[in-house]
């Protein structure tokens, strides 16, 4: 467990670098959200981070993210105030206030939404997320893997049009409904996902992923500063594998059912000269083959990094001629369980392949190295044996009986940014 710590401005930049790497090609560039947070910092806001393991079982934590097309974010930029608004509306709906805000998806721009909400509302960020990377769908989360209910959701657009999704059959239905609404809203919307109890957070999330993004960012910054190889530094620190080094020789993209799908062909350089590597992507990189043989699949993290700068390269922007290193990082243990693989394994992406981990026998639950300014102590727990777990029958008040207070009274007073 680590002590609460406050993010510095440099931390924000490092988290952006790290979250973009954990985005595995998707999730959108965190630049705008990082900039928005920095502007809040200029006006005095600060974000504190708490360890999920410090939560009480009956604490209630909200989970926020942004839905929509990265291209649309390029024009509409961020809207942290809309994210904060989804939380206020969820609190009003539930008649309860939250102990903290957790991250939905650490990879890409979504990693910053909880940070923005924290800077505006003063709620601490809970150091965990529901993916441990980026994925394209709500049913590809640890919450779905743990069969936790997918509702309620609140959704707010830039005009403050708002929807509360009070019930959904499952995560796939929630994904379908919210996606349709998101299109109507102009292809970008802020969402507060189904809130979680402290107990659920401790057992059904990927722990310490904000710290992980921060650590990755710091490693890259330090390697660049000391003229070390940032790619190697990432591999050393995270126990990753360099799969292939080469030059992008072809990129093909197409959209279907709202996904950016395609392939990326890399011709080998140096030790891989004469070989070829092919990546298939569905928003994020999903499958990697060397000379036709499968080397890596989801849910292991497949990152395409600039061979020189270590910067992550996304599926929307990767282009012909870039010199890249394909890196595999271990998937969180919860994603590698049989139930996890049903949701995020190769078959969930339409590939008739078994998942063969790049990291057999490794346990993602081990204590990561201590982090300066926010170090871990002993006692990080192992992720639960997920398949065996019985979800709580009714984990959340559904706006009935005693829990339903008048909406105005239910909105708590909280310090907001001046």
């Amino acid at each position, binding site marked *: 467990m680590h002590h609460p710590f406050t993010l510095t401005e440099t931390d924000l930049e490092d988290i952006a670098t790290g979250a973009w790497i954990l985005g595995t090609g998707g999730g959108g560039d965190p630049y705008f959200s990082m900039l928005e947070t920095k502007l809040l910092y200029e006006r005095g806001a600060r974000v504190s981070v708490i360890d999920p393991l410090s939560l009480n079982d009956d604490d209630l934590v909200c989970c926020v993210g942004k839905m929509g097309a990265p291209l649309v974010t390029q*024009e509409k*930029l961020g809207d942290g105030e809309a994210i904060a608004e989804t939380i206020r509306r969820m609190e009003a709906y539930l008649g309860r206030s939250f102990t903290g805000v957790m991250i939905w998806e650490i990879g890409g721009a979504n990693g910053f939404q909880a940070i923005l909400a924290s800077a505006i509302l003063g709620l601490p960020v809970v150091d965990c997320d529901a993916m441990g990377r980026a994925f394209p769908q709500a049913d590809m989360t640890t919450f779905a893997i743990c069969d936790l209910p997918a509702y309620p959701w609140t959704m707010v657009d830039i005009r403050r049009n708002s929807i509360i999704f009070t019930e959904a059959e499952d995560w796939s239905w929630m994904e379908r409904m919210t996606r349709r609404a998101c299109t109507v809203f102009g292809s970008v919307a802020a969402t507060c996902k189904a809130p979680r109890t402290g107990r659920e957070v401790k057992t059904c999330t990927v722990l310490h992923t904000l710290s992980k993004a921060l650590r990755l960012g710091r490693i890259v910054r330090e390697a660049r500063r000391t003229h070390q190889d940032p790619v190697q530094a990432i591999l050393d620190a995270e126990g990753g594998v360099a799969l292939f080094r080469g030059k992008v020789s072809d990129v093909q993209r197409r959209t279907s059912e709202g996904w950016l799908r395609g392939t990326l062909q890399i011709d080998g350089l140096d030790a891989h000269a004469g070989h070829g590597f092919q990546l298939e992507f569905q928003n994020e990189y999903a499958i990697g083959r060397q000379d036709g043989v499968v080397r890596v699949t989801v849910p292991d993290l497949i990152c395409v990094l600039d061979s020189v700068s270590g910067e992550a390269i996304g599926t929307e922007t990767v282009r012909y001629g870039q010199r890249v290193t394909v890196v595999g990082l271990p998937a969180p243990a919860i994603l590698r369980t049989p139930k996890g693989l049903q949701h995020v394994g190769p078959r969930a992406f339409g590939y008739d392949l078994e998942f063969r981990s790049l990291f057999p026998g490794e346990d993602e639950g081990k204590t990561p190295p201590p982090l300066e300014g926010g170090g871990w102590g002993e006692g990080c727990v192992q992720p639960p044996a997920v398949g065996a777990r019985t979800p709580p029958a009714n984990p959340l008040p559904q706006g009935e009986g005693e829990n339903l207070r008048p909406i105005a009274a239910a909105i708590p007073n909280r310090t907001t940014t001046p």
Partner: protein
Amino acid sequence: MIRAGIDVGGTNTDAVLLQGSTVLTAAKQPTTADVTRGVIDSLRLVLQQSAIAPAAIDAVMIGTTHFVNAVVQRRDLAPVAALRVNLPAAARIPPFSDWPPDLRAIVRGPVFMVRGGHEVDGRPIMPIDTAAIRDAARSIRAAGIESVGVTAVFSPLTSQAEDTAAAILREECPGIAITLSHDLGRIGLLARENVTLLNASLIKLARGTIAAFEQALQAMGIQAPLYITQNDGTVVRAASAAAFPVHCFASGPTNSLRGAAFLSGLTEAVVIDIGGTTSDFGALVHGFPRPANNVVEIGGVRTLFRMPDLLSIGLGGGTLVDPADPESIGPRSVGFRLTEQARVFGGETLTCTDIGVAAGLIRLGDPQRVAGLPADFVRRALARIHTMIEENADRMKTSTAPLPLIAVGGGGFLMPEQIAGFSGVVRVPHQEVANAVGAAIAQVSGEVDRVFTGLGRPAAIAEATRVARERAVGNGADPATLEVVEIEDLPLAYLPGDSLRVRVRVVGDVRHTV
């Protein structure tokens, strides 16, 4: 058709006269503090050398890095107003947010954000708030601001909001210079707005500079139309260039690339231009500089617009070599003081030029002054220079297939004869004035970058091509010579229907107007 090409660089002003595809004469002179005088002097020189009458010139093409230097050096920039038509979108990151503080302090005038703009599917975000725009316009006039940059959400898809704002600004602020972001940029509001505001802050300087060019040409008796070279390797008429100085930012390296293509007859190659202070690397695709599709930082500002994909390193004829360590080269340079400070010219500073003379690669100044350099020192310094060139040239390649490498520029003697990964090193006649040749041969272009929905790929590309051709002709191209040089399409995730972003660029020869 006789064309004059002039390239005004940071160190030298180069000029050539071209008849058809023959270089009649060339001249290289130091750039003067007064840019116009340097242009006139070099033009006068080539006219004298060739004994051609000023009236016989059919077109004058000038390339200048004057405007980008103004941004980098923070001089001659005007304060500008920023008007963003966006609310309630994009409200949390106001204009100038990610600018370096020193530049922001000079350029940032009043900033306004008003209701309006569009969704990605073309619906208005909100009805445009014309009353707020009128209020903003009145404040801008009251503040005495002479230039304004207007940026609306998704204006590259529909320019309606920016056009409405421009009409109001013209009514309320007669004579104000207006830059609209959709004329410059791609999708990416902040980076597009940044380049719009940079453009707005340069318009006064651009108008003054280009008017001075025109007056000077007239005074010399040259009646031919004046064209200014652009980032993509083409030219536009002077009046249109004055409205978009940012399109001249990379014209120096671009002209070298185009000149290299013309002089070598190659259309697919990597080009290195070794100057006095830097070596610029670029790539030719179909004879044109390969465009950068990503954010390009200019003077510390993130911009996204039509720029070539370039790589610049601190290596040139004037680059410093550490007398104690032959492998420590650059990035500092003596720049235009080469002829005073380099050892072969009587100075005390050891430069790459001295290494070249000591190695017998070039005869310059007094070789005796470097005769004392140990042979091993010279060999190691040269090996390091070659490695720097080799590594960076390789980074510009787009495949492992060996390409030719064209070497141009005054520092060309630093090039090795062979480098790994390339089919050969190509040297061309007039390589020292390749940039001026590139200016002289420049063509006119038309470009479209738009999202099409529900049209299907072939129809979308056909429509984009039609509009691009129309624009090229509007810019002064001869319709009979139009050629499509670039088609790029990208399907867009999440968007309804069959959305496709298509970019098409068409070029043609300058229409003979005389």
